[in-house]
């Protein structure tokens, strides 16, 4: 447990040592800010529904960029060898990196808290969906981070890790929009696999154990796959 914490803190600090963190955070804020506020006054609604409906798509590009270096960079410069020969289990390493990435994404969301503050000045905001939305965002971020880490563990090339990660996250994001093409027998299954519907429920302010279970399962499956990849590659 201590080992996981040590790795998580080290990886989290690492983001802020290099310029990557600042670039990714700025990019995230510019993109969300632009998409959200460009239509905000047209719709004339004091809520964050548009912000949260955009989040899965934006996350599926931003988060793989955050996680791509976690394993690939280590493999590329060779420090992976040092990491693996210290008294750490594969699970410690994978979970430590996962928590660092999730913490980083969560801290990326902190500046966006100014949106509801700002909106509450000019209109009546219902706190339920906003709080639910932020809780859902953290779950969504955790799920996508675990997928990104899995992608990063597959290759030593960060670009490849980014592309695989984006492909995985994007697939989960748009899966429920592709239901049209699926045979009707497996429709409920496919819909359950897609991330958007689960996120949408939470961000309406409804916290359903099925949705929580969904995100926890995605994290579990991805981290477990990462573990298998690490095990098979050594």
């Amino acid at each position, binding site marked *: 447990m*201590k*080992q996981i914490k*040590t*790795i998580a803190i*080290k990886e989290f600090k*690492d983001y802020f*040592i*290099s310029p990557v963190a600042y670039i990714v955070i700025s990019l995230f804020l510019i993109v969300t800010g632009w998409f959200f506020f460009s239509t905000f006054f047209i719709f004339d609604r004091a809520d964050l529904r548009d912000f949260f409906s955009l989040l899965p798509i934006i996350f599926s590009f931003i988060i793989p960029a955050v996680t791509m270096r976690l394993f690939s960079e280590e493999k590329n*410069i*060779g*420090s992976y*060898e*040092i990491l*693996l*020969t*210290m*008294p*750490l*289990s594969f699970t410690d390493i994978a979970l430590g990196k996962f928590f660092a990435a999730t913490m980083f994404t969560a801290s990326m969301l902190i500046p966006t808290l100014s949106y509801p503050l700002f909106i509450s000045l000019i209109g009546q905001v219902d706190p339920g969906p906003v709080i639910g939305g932020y809780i859902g965002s953290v779950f969504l971020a955790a799920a996508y981070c675990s997928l990104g880490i899995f992608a990063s563990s597959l290759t030593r090339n960060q670009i490849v890790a980014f592309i695989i990660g984006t492909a995985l996250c994007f697939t989960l994001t748009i899966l429920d929009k592709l239901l049209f093409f699926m045979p009707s027998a497996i429709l409920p299954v496919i819909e359950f696999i897609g991330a958007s519907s689960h996120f949408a429920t939470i961000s309406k302010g409804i916290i359903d154990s099925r949705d929580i279970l969904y995100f926890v399962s995605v994290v579990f499956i991805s981290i477990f796959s990462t573990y298998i990849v690490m095990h098979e590659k*050594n």
Partner: protein
Amino acid sequence: MIEVKNLTKYYKNFCAVNNISITIRKGEILGLLGPNGAGKTTTLRMLTGYLRPSSGTIHVNDFNMPEDVLKIKSLIGYLPESAPLYHNMLVYDYLDYVARIKGIEDKEARYDRFLKLSDLCGLSGIMDKPIGNLSKGLKQRVGLAHAMMTNPEILILDEPTSGLDPNQIAEIRSIIKSIGKEKTIIFSTHILSEAEATCDRIAIINNGRVVADDTTLNLKKRVQADSLIRLSLKGADKENALSLLKSIDPMLDVEAVKPSEEDLISFEIQSSGDQDFRSEIYLKIKETDWIIVQLAKESQALEKIFRELTREVA
């Protein structure tokens, strides 16, 4: 201490390490020698638990690989080849991170350890520098400090002196010798003189097999060693000296080399087997008015063994 049995590693169809068995006793300095690509690094990586063997067993103390891999890892300090460290971290931050992971919880204890290590490895001036800005030798020292963080019983060093300047090589060797008095050290190298100077025992690996495994002295006794006689003369001229040496034995392999001082003439004379021409050379030169400044014999036993053992299979 460490017992390796029938260790084999395949990369796809390529056999990098083929049925290696070695036993290493406590307090021994073992040198793994071998040409490039012989399987030294792969062997060390399996010992440290970085790679999984395709077959074979590794026992360290009472622990078995792979069940007790975490316990074995905490017994071993490992310096990989060319010390791949995190480039964006400061040396102090890095050591702090390693100390935490290796379970030195107490802040005071960590600080004490850093002081000792910075003394031992010469890190005092670079604690506040990013690792990426350090020269190769300094990185190697940080890597060594990493390996010795918890004062482990076993140190495994993969080519610890490669790419270093002569001062740094001498320093690393002296560190190895000083810690080798109480610790078990395994290190790989392809520099023969280094193995000869620092190891108690040498294992020569070629094409993934152990082709020789013995103490340094025994290994040298195994062959009719070639030797090299170094001769430096004062007050002689090259032509006459050469013809004089040839008069001892026309087949003598004499080569004039660059002298170490200006008014000297230097030769290197190869002799094979147990022939020793030193007395003949001395007697011949005594007849002239030249002065012998140097007349020394160097045994090339290790070179010969190495060449024979690594060539016959190739």
